[in-house]
Every structure is written in C-alpha cells, then in structure tokens.
C-alpha cells in the first residue's frame, strides 16, 4: 500500500522509476489527484507550451474480418458495409481540408484485399497536397509495407493493443487475424523500424483492469521511446461506452502518464463528451480530434453507414477551437511538413 506521503514525495522527483509510476496509479494518489494535475500541467506546458494540435479521422472502410466483441465493425454485426473508392475518400478529405484540418488519420477495418497497400498509396498520393501530416490506423502490416507507405507520404502509425492482458485479449478477439496477440503487439516495433516519425499506442479503457493495463502501456511506451529514439511516441485513451473506467480514473491515468513520461504526446478523441474534453485540456493532453465522423463517407455523403463507435463531442472544429482558446491555449492546425519525408514520385 502506498501512502499519500509517499505519493507526495514521488511528486518531488524529476525522473520516476516504474515503481514510482505504479504508486501514482494507487488509491492514495487518487485522493490527491489535484496535486498530480498541478504537476502534469507544469510538465506539459514546459515541453509543449500552451498549445493543442488538431487532427481528424477519415474512415475508409467498415468492412472487417475480425470479430472484436466490443467493435461496431465486428464481422458478425449486421449493418451497412462500405469501402470508399480512392475518389470517394478524396472527397471526404476535401471536406476536412476545407474545415481547416491539416493533420489527418486514415482509419479502416481489417480487409486487406479492399484497403490494400496499393489502394493506400494511390490515396496518399492524392492527399499529399491537402494535408501536412497523414497517419494511418488500419490493420497491422509488415515492415516492408510500412516502408512503402512512408515513402508514399504517411508519417505516423497508430495501433492500439486494445488490451495488454493476454487472457482477456483472447476472449475479446475470438477470430480473424487479430486473434494473434504477438503480431499485434509487435506492430509499433515494425513501424518504428520502417521509420515512422510518429507512433501512437493505447489500449481500450474498459476491457481490463485500468491500473495494470496502464502500467503495461507505460512500459510499452517507454520501451518504444528508448528503442525508436527518433520517433515521437504518443498515447491515446479510447474509452469504451459504458466503461468501468470512471472520469476520475481517466484523469488520474492522464496525469500519471504525463508525470512519468513528460515528453510523450497524449491524445483525446471525440469519444469523450465535450465538457470532459474541455476540462482535460490543461491537464496534459496535447492532441485532439474534432468534428469527427466514424463511418466511411460520413463527411461528404448523406446516407450514413455503420459507425465504429458513437462519438460524444459533436461540436464543429470552430466550436472546439473556441473552447481551447477559452482555456488559454492556442489551437494548432499544422505542426508537421511533408517536406521532411523524401516522398516517392507519383507513379499512378
């Protein structure tokens, strides 16, 4: 058992051990959450300033061969299945570019024959002029494929382990390629070797015990930071609807991770409600999505397909930007440049 005094003494240290981090997840730390938040804010402002980076997802396809029990794209769930053509995806992208987004995240289910490497390359070639930064959150790929995508102009990789606990992982991923725990776990590693500038990891809040999952996540992030020292590592907090993880626990998790890993990016999506997101702005979050739609075609088409999850924060980009300004922060649209990457010539 960690006492409040022990937590307080940890808050005085600059470089924390993993054991110190574990103490920040304790119940005693929960009781002095305000002190954690104060330190998290100071550390975040030192490294990231008073800024918030925006991004938006584009869902390319909700077809999927997996059966993740928590997901709207589960192949056993009925619903309208759609995969966008390159032209349709570009139409989506144009809507987002028009809104003001300069960083985007391409998302899809696991359907390799539809959302193929070739398809992604052709799409990225067309998106390169519209966006400063393009990341992917699709199915795990080989290092070779990642290198191809990097050369095409993809600079970031997002992949969540979903749950670090192996037993639970097997239970919630009963079939499909995703049932291979190790292949998924090694995905950020393959991305790092391929040379992605940004690697974003996370777990789904609500599948396992939040404290042990957060500890595993922190270890994973620290390992990646050391091994791929040229990549910016960031962490997301996708919380399942009706999750057992409370707002207080989510807040504690964000603050503790910030204190343990002061330079890691922390990302919060529109899964969370507007009020909570606004309150978390000054506590350590560095990137936010806004105005998101989680079904393919939803930005540019009228008939909605099946969503991956229901979003909570329905505000427009302008409204979220205004909320950020109100908190005394500067919304940042562009903080990356295509020019960093020596992109391959357009051959299509």
């Amino acid at each position: 058992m960690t006492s409040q005094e022990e937590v307080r003494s940890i808050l005085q240290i600059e470089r924390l051990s993993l054991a110190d981090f574990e103490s920040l997840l304790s119940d005693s730390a929960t009781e002095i959450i305000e002190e954690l938040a104060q330190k998290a804010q100071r550390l975040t402002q030192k490294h990231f300033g008073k800024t918030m980076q925006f991004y938006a997802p584009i869902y390319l396809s909700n077809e999927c061969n997996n059966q993740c029990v928590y997901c709207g794209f589960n192949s056993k769930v009925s619903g309208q299945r759609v995969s966008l053509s390159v032209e349709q995806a570009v139409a989506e992208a144009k809507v987002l570019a028009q809104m003001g987004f300069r960083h985007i995240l391409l998302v899809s289910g696991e359907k390799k024959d539809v959302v193929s490497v070739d398809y992604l390359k052709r799409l990225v070639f067309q998106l390169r002029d519209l966006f400063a930064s393009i990341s992917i959150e699709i199915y795990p790929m080989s290092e070779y494929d990642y290198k191809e995508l990097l050369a095409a102009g993809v600079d970031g990789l997002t992949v969540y382990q979903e749950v670090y606990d192996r037993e639970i992982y097997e239970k919630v991923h009963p079939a499909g390629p995703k049932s291979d725990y190790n292949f998924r776990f090694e995905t950020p590693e393959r991305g790092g070797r391929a040379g992605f500038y940004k690697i974003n990891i996370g777990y789904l809040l609500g599948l396992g015990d939040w404290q042990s999952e957060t500890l595993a996540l922190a270890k994973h992030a620290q390992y990646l930071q050391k091994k791929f020292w040229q990549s910016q590592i960031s962490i997301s907090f996708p919380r399942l609807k009706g999750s057992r993880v409370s707002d207080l626990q989510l807040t504690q998790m964000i603050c503790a991770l910030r204190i343990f890993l002061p330079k890691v990016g922390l990302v919060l999506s529109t899964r969370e409600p507007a009020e909570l997101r606004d309150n978390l702005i000054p506590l350590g979050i560095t990137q936010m999505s806004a105005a998101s739609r989680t079904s393919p075609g939803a930005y540019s088409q009228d008939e909605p397909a099946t969503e991956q999850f229901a979003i909570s924060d329905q505000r427009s980009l302008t409204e979220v930007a205004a909320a950020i300004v109100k908190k005394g922060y500067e919304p940042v649209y562009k903080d990356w440049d295509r020019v960093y990457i020596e992109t391959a010539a357009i051959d299509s």
Partner: protein
Amino acid sequence: MLKIADKTFTSRLFLGTGKFPSNQSLKEALAAAETEIVTVALRRVDLNSPQEDILAAIDRSKYLLLPNTSGARTAEEAVRLARLARAGGAGNWLKLEVTPDPNYLLPDPIETLKAAEILVKEGFIVLPYINADPVLAKRLADVGTAAVMPLGSPIGSHQGLKTKEAITIIIEQANIPVVLDAGLGAPSHAAEAMEMGADAVLVNTAIAIASNPAKMAEAFKLAVIAGRQAYELGLKTPTTQASASSPLTGFLR
C-alpha cells in the same frame, strides 16, 4: 551593436515563437521584448491558410524572420526544408536545427555540420543550433556559418547555463557571434550569459508559458541589457584568495 553577416541589430534578445497561448500574446511579447530577430518553426508555417498562420503575428517590416528547421532528423531533411522555405519567400536567413530526438530536441552535430556546409554554399545565412561543443563551433565557423547558437541546457528545461564551462571556451575562441540558445528559464540566466560575453540570447518557452508573456519578455529584455552593459564595462573576476599580508617580493626592495 550586434553584427551578424551584413546586418546590425540594437537588440541582443532573439525570440522563439512556439508554445504561446495565442497569436495575440505572441505579438505583445515581441513588442515588449523589443526584439529584432524572431525565429519560427517551418513545420508550423501554413501557406495554405495565411489568416490562421503563425506568420500573421510577425510583422516582417519590424522583425527579421529567422525560419528554423526544427524536427528535421537529417541534414538532407533540413536542407530540403530550407530550400522550400526560401522558394516560398521566407528569405535566406536560417536557424539550422537538426534534432532527430523528439524528446530532448538535442542537435545532431554530424548532420548539422553537413547541412551547414551545403546551405552556406547555396547562399543561406546559417545560424546553427548546437550542443555546447567548442570544436564543433570552430568547424561550423570554418564552413562559413554566420553565428553559432550553443545550448545552455535542453529546450524548455529552464535549467539555465548547465554548459557554462564549454560556453566560456566557445566565446573565448569565437570569431563569429555566439548566441546562447535554449534552456534559459529566468532573466538571471540570460543576464549571466550576457555577462560571460555571449553576443545575444534566444528565449522562447520561459516567455511563452509565463502568466503574462509580455511582462516576462520585458524582464528578459532588461536582463539582457543589464548583462551586456556589465560585460562591456568589464566585470571583476570573483576571487576566493586573500592577498598575502607580507609581500613575497619584499626582498627586492
């Protein structure tokens, strides 16, 4: 007067522009600092939406724009970024930053030297961000950089002049301006650098995240002026030794 390449400056305080809570607060800080040289990360510049852009806050008739290549991992990336910026109208002054590690943003000495060599040949006025390495500073001067910008401590760390001994050597050996960059968390740090004989300092985070950036910018301005004035007057080296009461050379009289 501070002279870099063919330009002279009254102010010896450079400002960085990242991390400010708004373009308005940035604008006010620039004015209060009475700075003349302002650095902007090219990665933040968005020529597609000029009204949202960070450049909108910087009046280029008042300030010399010093674009920087922060985020570049290699010489090649930095060179590409610099060329594109010049083609886009950002001028030929450049703060060269090759910072492959996104965590501490420490500069890569090998890639920095490579990039400097190429960019100087292409006509850029190059001010490289470096670790406090006296030999590297000389090597960069040899390839023709207009100044060197050694760090006091890692960016945003507010730790002040942790590299003091090496900085002293860099200043002693320099025949180009030395601009102390990064890690200056308090006006006293800036004053200390100026007292040591640095030609100028660059400050960003300490001003950007202050509760009142304009007031903090003014505080740094005053510290830089104070430090420089003391340096020019000549500071007495502190001594711990007492003078011997019976002279050692009395026998000569």
